[in-house]
């Protein structure tokens, strides 16, 4: 795959007369707009698990996200375009991820990085893991791997750039769908009840001990 450059602005898909070649640029608004949009995809500074370490490595100078115009990791969802879901999505974290997604301005994109984010990974059947972030929010690019190497993430981001390129101006600025935040179910134990539970178990334990003592005597 080639890294995107400004070439496509020179090839608008229209016939340009010879005398005008090299002196004017003819393009569509969509193309111009997407060219700018594609080269400044700002990710959200947001990591969930071990894939986040690989994401940090991608942003560092060895692989350098800045070459793609993505170096500005925004610490606020209001300023970011892409959410890299890097790691295991636990049920505890699910409402927060959805809330962050809802707070992002349109057009917004989601990358599921790694096995856990795309399908739950080895924790798929775990009691506390959402098996794939696509159960909660729409995902644009899936990157398999555990964790994906920095190059694999860059490849996924380039795929996203290609997707952005093909989008139409009109369709990206639709009203965002509000995704209702998932609600955590009741816990097995309420922390406020801990003293009661402790009392109950102590009592039970004492009873059992007394029974054992009686059995030893009798």
């Amino acid at each position: 795959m080639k890294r995107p450059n400004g070439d496509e602005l020179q090839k608008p898909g229209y016939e340009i007369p010879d005398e005008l070649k090299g002196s004017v640029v003819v393009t569509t608004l969509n193309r111009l707009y997407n060219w700018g949009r594609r080269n400044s995809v700002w990710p959200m500074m947001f990591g969930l698990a071990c894939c986040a370490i690989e994401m940090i490595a991608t942003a560092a100078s060895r692989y350098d996200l800045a070459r793609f115009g993505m170096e500005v990791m925004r610490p606020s969802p209001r300023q970011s375009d892409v959410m890299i879901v890097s790691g295991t999505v636990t049920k505890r974290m699910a409402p927060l991820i959805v809330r962050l997604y809802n707070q992002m301005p349109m057009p917004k994109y989601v990358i599921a990085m790694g096995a856990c984010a795309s399908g739950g990974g080895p924790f798929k059947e775990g009691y506390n893991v959402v098996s794939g972030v696509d159960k909660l929010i729409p995902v644009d690019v899936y990157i398999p791997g555990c964790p994906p190497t920095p190059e694999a993430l860059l490849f996924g981001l380039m795929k996203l750039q290609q997707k952005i390129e093909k989008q139409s101006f009109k369709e990206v600025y639709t009203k965002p769908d509000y995704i209702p935040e998932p609600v955590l179910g009741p816990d097995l134990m309420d922390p406020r009840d801990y003293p009661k539970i402790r009392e109950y178990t102590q009592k039970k334990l004492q009873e059992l001990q007394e029974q054992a003592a009686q059995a030893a005597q009798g």
Partner: protein
Amino acid sequence: MDGRGILNGLAVTIKHFIATYVDDFKRKNRYFTPEGVKYRSSPEVEGIFTIQYPEERRILHENFRYIPFLVYDEGEDGQRDIRCTACGICAKVCPAQTIWIVRAKDPETGRPLSKPAEFYIDTTLCMNCGLCAEFCPFDAIIMDHDYEIAVYSKDHMVFDLERLLKSASYYQRIRPTQYAEKAAEREAKAKAKAAKAARRGAKK
């Protein structure tokens, strides 16, 4: 003296910075060529470099592992001889249980054959641990080096037999040392088997 540590640190940084660019005058073809990448990732080079990923690639270690693939040997008349015997060891050792195998059946007698009819690896689960490749007694499943597999839709993330099959020459190209070792091992085994058969024949 106070502040010496800071000065030392700054000196190290500027040393790296200068070393990175001094070599540019001495040497050419350091960028965007495989030799350039090789030189820049070698121990004798000084300075710090970015890997300009889509144009140039990091030289992967032979034991680098990504999603596994199935090996087939090329036959003389171009048919693909799949090494996998559908024994199911890989499916059993897989910690994430990503592998699903269906054994092929003889179309006439209906008896099971030692070939897979279907073979699936769910890449949404695979964690690249390499246990399948380690346990395979036939060197049929090998960890790949191809990491460029990002997709737009989850439907393409379950790899089927056709997607997984790759030739033995590809295996030899990405892991030459391992390939040579395993080939020698298999040859020795075949030789021992032949000798045993010959001895048994002589006894009779």
